[in-house]
């Protein structure tokens, strides 16, 4: 195993002044993108397109990769401070991060999520460096049935992560899956639930929906009270986590990172499933699960570590299978192709300087992110010093512009309005929107995998139980469900 020789080659590539510069540029832009739900990604992509094709492929890749994993760091900031998650991963962090902010512990929450991001990334990079070909092969052996079962497990974890009746969580998942079917059927091109509205042909916008369900409903609930229930001005000194915080957070980060690194190899959805699953794991193994949802530190450290670890291993399918998970990774693929490099199983062997340079840049980039993000915390928490009566109109402006900029569509603002109303109604009826978000993004994929698996089996649903990996995932999902039904029944006596 000449891992060290490879890493030496990688660092040799990654510490050139140009590489360092583009790495820094990438992670800085990534942080910005992550912090601004909606706004950042489009602006950055339009800005970067001209740049990527005219610099050498390694530098272009280092920069684009920096944007991708840098965005994961910032993603939790708006969720913790203002309950504005732009992705399902960030929605998981709102569950305990936002209560922490309301208890005046926003600084601690941001500190811990930054450290968790770093820890998760480091483990992800280690796995990437040591086992990329192995992980790629494992991902290859996954077929429709396995993907379907894995998503069912992820959805089950999402349904059961909140307090109260598991049935409520399941309803939210089902609602998310239903909302995910809005738009055009991917196999036949039939419009479903579109009703002649052209904007719906593409489906409902994730950010518009999330901003309505989380952000707007929160604003409505708090506007009259003049602030979040227990909003307290955070003090600078309270930014540093206590020893007890660390004791709870570090094992949770480790578990989260492990879960995330494993899930990351699934193109596109790995990191969001990993976030929900790692949260569910923390809640199940906690001595007192009732702390979750009220500011449990494990509830932010584990999912944050998981989604960053997954963001690192997500490069495996992009580079070795040519299947990118999102728009930024697709740009990476484009940059490779422009320079005549074809992603595929042979890429690591054929382009060692590129691959190992990228891996080395991940290490440097994550260090930069750590240095970049920790001082920013002071700036972020100062937002909470603004009186709520002045802050919330600004939050609404921010939501509106962000959502509009994604596809320059005023229709999406109407969606924010509608989902804001729905979100407020759900709040009154005690439904938690986070599971809905995961159902929404997994829905279209779940349907495709279900249809494929059933075609492969010629209509026999036993395929999900006959294939061992699929059966194991479904078994776990069933155990999870039974366990929480049992505790729910026992609690009521």
């Amino acid at each position, binding site marked *: 195993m000449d891992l060290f020789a490879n890493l030496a080659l990688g660092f040799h590539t990654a510490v050139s002044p140009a590489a360092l510069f583009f790495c820094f540029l990438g992670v800085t832009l990534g942080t910005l993108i992550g912090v601004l739900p909606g706004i950042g990604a489009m602006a950055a*992509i*339009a800005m970067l*397109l*001209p740049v990527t*094709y005219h610099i050498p492929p390694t530098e272009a890749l280092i920069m684009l990769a920096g944007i991708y994993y840098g965005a994961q760091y910032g993603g939790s900031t708006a969720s913790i401070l203002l309950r504005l998650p732009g992705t399902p991963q960030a929605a998981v962090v709102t569950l305990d991060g936002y209560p922490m902010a309301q208890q005046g512990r926003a600084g601690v929450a941001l500190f811990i999520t930054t450290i968790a991001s770093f820890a998760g990334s480091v483990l992800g990079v280690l796995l990437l460096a040591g086992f990329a070909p192995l992980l790629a092969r494992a991902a*290859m*052996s*996954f*077929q*429709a049935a396995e993907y379907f079962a894995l998503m069912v497990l992820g959805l089950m974890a999402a349904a059961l992560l909140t307090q109260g009746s598991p049935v409520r969580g399941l309803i939210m998942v089902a609602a998310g899956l239903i909302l995910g079917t809005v738009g*055009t*059927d*991917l*196999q*036949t*091109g039939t*419009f479903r639930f579109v009703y002649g509205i*052209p904007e719906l*042909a*593409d489906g409902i916008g994730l950010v518009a929906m999330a901003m309505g369900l989380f952000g707007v409903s929160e604003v409505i609930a708090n506007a009259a009270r003049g602030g979040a229930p227990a909003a307290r001005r955070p003090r600078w000194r309270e930014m540093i986590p206590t020893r007890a915080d660390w004791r709870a957070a570090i094992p949770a980060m480790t578990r989260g990172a492990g879960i995330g690194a494993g899930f990351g190899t699934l193109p596109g959805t790995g990191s969001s499933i990993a976030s929900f699953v790692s949260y569910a794991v923390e809640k199940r193994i906690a001595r007192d699960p009732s702390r979750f949802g009220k500011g449990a530190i494990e509830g932010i450290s584990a999912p944050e570590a998981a989604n960053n670890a997954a963001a690192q291993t997500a490069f495996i399918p992009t580079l070795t*299978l*040519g*299947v*990118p998970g999102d*728009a930024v*990774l*697709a740009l990476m*693929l*484009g940059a490779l*192709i*422009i320079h*005549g490099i*074809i*992603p*595929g*199983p*042979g890429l690591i062997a054929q382009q060692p300087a590129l691959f190992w340079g990228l891996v080395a840049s991940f290490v440097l980039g994550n260090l930069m992110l750590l240095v970049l993000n920790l001082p920013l915390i002071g700036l972020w928490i100062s937002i909470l010093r603004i009186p709520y009566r002045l802050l919330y109109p600004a939050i609404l402006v921010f939501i509106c512009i962000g959502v509009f900029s994604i596809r320059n569509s005023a229709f999406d603002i109407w969606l924010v309005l509608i989902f804001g109303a729905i979100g407020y109604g759900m709040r009154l009826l005690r439904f938690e929107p986070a599971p809905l978000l995961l159902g929404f993004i997994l829905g279209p994929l779940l349907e495709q995998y279900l249809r*494929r698996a059933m*075609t*492969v089996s*010629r209509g026999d649903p036993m395929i999900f139980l006959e294939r061992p990996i699929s059966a194991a995932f479904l078994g776990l999902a069933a155990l999870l469900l039974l366990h929480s039904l049992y505790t729910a029944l026992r609690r009521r006596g």
Partner: protein
Amino acid sequence: MKKIATLACAALLAAGPALAQDWPTRTVTVVVGFGAGSTPDLLARLIADGLQEKLGQPFVVDNRPGAGGNIGLDAVAKAEPDGYTLGVTIPGPLIVNPMRMELMYDPEEDIRPVTMLGTQPSVLAVNAELGVDTLDELLDLLRADPGGYNYASIGVGSISQLAMEMVALASGTEIEHIPYTSSPEAVQAVIGGEAQMATMPPLAVLSQAEEGTLKLLAQTSAERMPIVADVPTFAELGIEGVQAEAWNALVTTAGTPDAVVDTLYAALAELLSDPEMQERISGLGFAPVQMTPAEFEARIAEETPRWRSVLEAAGLLNE
């Protein structure tokens, strides 16, 4: 009064060319009906980069995968006809699918063809573990277990579907169709074993064929293409009807002003005749093409009856 009228006329006349210079003044979206990493996507990214340099505004690729490319072309059909939405498409959504199914758009009325960008052969690849080395052996295998095999495609109406239907026809059995939304996904399905075979662009299968996980049995072009020179053509092997190259073309919304299309085509013509660009296009497995909008429209008209007879032969007309 007369003077004013003359001035107004002059202003109107000036508006034509002025419009052309006014385009593009902002970001142009290039819609691709297939997933990122598919060959239409890669070609679109290459062309978008070139246009951006020539026309000075960002050209952003937007992937709208699904339904064999129909979803992407539908987005182009329904866009404002202002030249800010372009599309890269294959023959499927433009020619084949309108003959096969009810669509939400009518290519003749809603789409304005601009030019063809490149053509590429398609190669029948099978999982190496299937143990067949020739098309004949594959046909025997299919006959031994009728209905027992699946093929992957990049969606309905693509050559990747039609070629496999012709193979099924030649074997006298049915092969189950499993559609994906990009060639990398479809190839992954063949390697993973979800499907056993697929007809794909060379770029998507060559590296796996070199590694030995896939075997290449036949290609769709009329003559052997240099990039896959050792693979026989379907015609050589006695399967007629799929001697087609999968071309990729640039289109826009019907009703887009002539001035805009002229500016766009002029930039494209310059781009596609640039040797460096041609080399990059070849690197993706495409043969670069030069075609005026009129020639392209004539080509579409010429191909339509040909595809109709293929569909008829495969029993796929008006499903």
